[in-house]
């Protein structure tokens, strides 16, 4: 298309925008993402992980457009109930709105994409609310006007039904928000898995996303849950049978990336130390929610603050900064494992409580993560036109593990004695069962 701008990208080759879309790209809230690392401090253990939210957001926009074109192509609408869901009279409007929502979906991220935002923002605020604030800002309004899109539609699709509470989602809007952040096939996840694995140098995050996207379809989840009644006609994203193996590969890639990269214990403890630093460094221990203030603070300003505090022994955040800058992070004492889980489901918590009693609150940290998004059960259109559950067709999907980690960390100073202490007391601590029902 004439006047299209092409941006080279290592994952998608070219990302294309038309001139009116470039105005969104050039806006201050979007340019800020050039200075927000996609994976926070992960570059301290995977040196290649220096990529930013900026290129990820471009990738999400590119993929959202590709998926939209596939699922709305009339030759790909294979079920009668879906035909009424797609508003073909507004097909260009919704394509543009979806691409802009995808581009803007991460605008509100705090510096270092910080996951502990509940501690670093006032009550009631999270990065999704900040994202909506940027989309609705006076700065962005003329851009939406020139694009002829309703900013509320952009905000709605950008943050999805979990965070946009003002109005309920129509079936069509639910599908569009699923294209961005859906549990199984959201392009946000497709892009970050591919991009993160590329930068980290871990091949297990890759999968055949070309094949997967070509086979995505809007399908009703019509398989049944009782003998008496037919299944649901509510539409969702599914795949044609030919894409099932690519879907399996995506969900396995997610498992490997979460278990080996995103939940790597050193990455997790750096996140905790960074949160401690930010609470000591920020005025009042929290980020401002004012858009103008947020535009002024990125990873660059925080990194500068970290370095200054690490050099200044009198700085109130000095200890926390040194743990990051000097790599004096807490070391892993214990992690959840199946053998101990068989004895006591709360073995990690027991070890943490006992270690804290023994070494003191300031020397021990606990971290826990459970996978939130399942996404293993999606409709599959098979060759004879039946729609089946992915789980009834794929033994692989039925066996994809879910990520569950618990870590107990101790300070560098306590490490040796803590290792000896745990070796001597581990069995007894894990066997102890307190009253959980108080």
């Amino acid at each position, binding site marked *: 298309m004439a006047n299209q701008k092409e941006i080279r990208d290592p994952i998608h080759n070219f990302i294309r925008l038309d001139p009116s879309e470039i105005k969104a790209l050039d806006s201050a809230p979007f340019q800020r993402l050039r200075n927000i690392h996609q994976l926070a401090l992960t570059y301290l253990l995977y040196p290649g992980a220096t990529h930013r939210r900026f290129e990820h957001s471009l990738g999400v926009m590119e993929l959202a457009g590709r998926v939209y074109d596939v699922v709305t192509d009339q030759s790909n609408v294979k079920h009668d109930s879906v035909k009424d869901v797609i508003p073909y009279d507004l097909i260009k409007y919704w394509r543009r709105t979806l691409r802009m929502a995808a581009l803007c979906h991460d605008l509100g991220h705090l510096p270092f994409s910080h996951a502990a935002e509940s501690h670093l923002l006032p009550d009631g605020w999270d990065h999704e609310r900040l994202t909506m604030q940027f989309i609705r800002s006076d700065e962005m309004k003329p851009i939406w006007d020139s694009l002829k899109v309703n900013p509320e539609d952009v905000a709605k699709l950008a943050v999805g039904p979990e965070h946009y509470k003002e109005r309920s989602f129509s079936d069509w809007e639910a599908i569009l928000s699923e294209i961005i952040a859906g549990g199984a096939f959201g392009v946000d996840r497709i892009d970050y898995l591919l991009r993160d694995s590329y930068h980290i140098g871990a091949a297990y995050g890759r999968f055949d996303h070309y094949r997967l996207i070509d086979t995505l379809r809007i399908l009703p989840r019509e398989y049944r849950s009782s003998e008496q009644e037919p299944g649901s006609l509510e539409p969702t994203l599914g795949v044609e049978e030919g894409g099932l193996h690519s879907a399996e590969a995506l969900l396995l890639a997610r498992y490997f990336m979460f278990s080996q990269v995103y939940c790597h214990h050193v990455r997790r403890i750096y996140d905790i130390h960074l949160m401690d630093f930010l609470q000591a460094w920020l005025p009042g221990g929290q980020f401002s929610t004012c858009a103008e203030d947020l535009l002024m603070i990125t990873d660059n300003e925080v990194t500068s603050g970290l370095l200054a505090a690490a050099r200044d022994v009198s700085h109130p955040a000095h200890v926390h900064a040194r743990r990051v800058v000097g790599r004096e992070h807490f070391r892993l004492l214990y992690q959840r494992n199946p053998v101990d889980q068989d004895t006591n489901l709360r073995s990690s918590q027991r070890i943490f409580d006992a270690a804290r009693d023994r070494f003191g609150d300031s020397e021990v940290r606990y971290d826990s993560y*459970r996978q939130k998004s399942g996404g293993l059960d999606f409709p599959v259109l098979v060759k004879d036109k039946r729609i089946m559950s992915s789980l009834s067709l794929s033994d692989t999907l039925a066996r994809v593990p879910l990520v569950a980690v618990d870590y107990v960390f101790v300070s560098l100073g306590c490490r040796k004695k803590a290792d000896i202490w745990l070796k001597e007391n581990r069995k007894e601590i894990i066997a102890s069962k307190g009253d959980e029902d108080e």
Partner: protein
Amino acid sequence: MMKKSQRDAVLLSLVREMVARGSWCGETHIQKAAYFLQALLGVPLEFDFILYKHGPFSFDLSYEITALRADALLRYQTRPYPYGPSIVPTDEGRSFLDSYPKTLKRYADQISFVAGKLGNMGVADLERLATALYVTLNQDGQSGPRAEQIPLLKPHISLEEADLAVRRVDEIMGEARDLRISTS
């Protein structure tokens, strides 16, 4: 306020009871049963329900169900075509419940009531009934008759089906009155 582990025990107990009452117990069944337990009977699960998939839906609850599967307390049970998967407690999940006798005793009547009312329902029935309860509990006095609101929110539900669902919800609300837990 319940601790997270106590809330997990209530959820697991609800799933166990639903399965015992013959429920297919896919995620939609658990979502709607938890909605009735919280919104109708006042069990303080503190999930944030919005009107979304098949009626009232909580993302928090969906994440919690996945987390319980990650902890091997719940598991998928796959079924051959034309059926979808069920979610059932594991042996570890059943053992987990042994640690929470006080919590389970406190909410046993409410769990039993919900499982008894919803245990034999399919997804379509649950969607209609839970949406009718949602509309009933969120009336703003300006939206018109409840049965007329439901097809506006869920176009695949007919007015006749909505009317039946509203009447059934009124019956259930009457039966549940003595079981409701006061939040004050």
